[in-house]
């Protein structure tokens, strides 16, 4: 690691805070301990941070505000003047829309990097989650991996596939729905509010290397999909791609 890189990464470190959890920052801290100049700069940075943190830690969350939040008392009946004007639902919607347009460029670039054949069709399957109330599902209190027979007996659906690591999750409900007249199995998992999907890859034009995960996001949702022979399995939940990577690593 070069001295300049080390100096920059040291800036991401703060005493007593979780910055050192990142291996690159941990390395930079170790490198600084061996370099006299960096050591002096780092010691000064730490002293400054400690002074600032001492001042910041005197700030406490006002108890009245906490109580108000926990009680759910809204203060939305004030007159919409000044700042409040910008908090009006219509204005918030406009601001969110403007922000979305700005963010769209970055998101579309990220998604292009994570593109695969059939992804547009798969995105529409993920979006089904947003329209769900939970009432569409048939209650099923059993392991998700044991629903194979149920999907076949009830719907004649033969393409239900779950990787071994996902078979033990307890389902809360399941159903088969049609996307463009083609069948998709959907299973609700209470654990971390996950939703599993399984479908025939060729039905939606999906072509992926066998058993290789592809992670992508859609709004609040993150999804990981893999193809196994002719079937696809997809796990979705609200969260970040980092949280999905953590889930898959734990498998």
């Amino acid at each position, binding site marked *: 690691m070069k001295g300049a890189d080390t100096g920059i990464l040291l800036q991401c470190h703060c005493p007593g805070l979780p910055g050192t959890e990142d291996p690159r920052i941990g390395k930079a801290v170790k490198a600084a301990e061996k370099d006299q100049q960096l050591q002096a700069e780092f010691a000064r940075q730490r002293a400054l941070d400690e002074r600032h943190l001492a001042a910041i830690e005197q700030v406490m*969350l006002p108890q009245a505000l906490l109580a108000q939040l926990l009680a759910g008392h809204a203060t939305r009946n004030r007159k919409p003047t000044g700042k409040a004007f910008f908090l009006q639902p219509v204005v918030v919607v406009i601001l969110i829309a403007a922000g979305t347009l700005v963010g769209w460029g970055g998101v579309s670039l990220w998604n292009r990097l994570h593109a695969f054949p059939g992804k547009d069709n798969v995105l529409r399957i993920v979006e089904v989650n947003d329209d769900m109330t939970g009432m569409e599902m048939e209650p099923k209190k059993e392991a998700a991996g044991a629903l194979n027979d149920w999907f076949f007996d009830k719907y004649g659906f033969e393409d239900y596939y779950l990787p071994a690591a996902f078979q033990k999750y307890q389902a809360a409900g399941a159903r088969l729905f049609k996307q463009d007249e083609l069948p998709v199995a959907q299973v609700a998992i209470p654990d971390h509010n996950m939703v599993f999907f399984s479908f025939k890859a060729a039905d939606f034009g999906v072509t992926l290397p066998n058993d290789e995960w592809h992670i992508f996001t859609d709004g609040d949702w993150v999804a990981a999909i893999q193809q196994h022979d002719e079937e696809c399995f997809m796990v979705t939940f609200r969260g970040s791609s980092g949280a999905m990577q953590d889930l898959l690593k734990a498998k």
Partner: protein
Amino acid sequence: MDLPITTEDLTRLYRFTLLLTGDEVAAQQVFHDACLESAPRLAGYRNEDDRIACLMGILRQKARTATPSGCEPRAIARAFVTLPEEDRAALAGLYSGLLSARALADVLKMSLDQMGRTLKSARQRLERAMLELGEPSLEQTL
């Protein structure tokens, strides 16, 4: 309201808000509105870090349009408001101690190196601002 975040983390988030707005009255309003708006979404997130990242993003967005009340802020908050918004958000985020550096960089939509450079500039500006507010220099206090 059901907020799936611990009181300790709410306190840290409030400190983050105060450093962004530089004004206790504005910070309380921003914090209240952000919590109210995000509560239904937060429950759907898989882990604590994602919930905090979501709320930090909303707080930052709301703090940008917050109007100062005119009340006399603490010295540290007064110094923070002199920083450019990006510097302020990065250093306030780091000092809030809520997320790892990598996760914070994601919230700020920066690489780790970019965040390092932003934090360097923020620390330098904050030190200058504290001196201008009459706080003793680090060398004087050592």
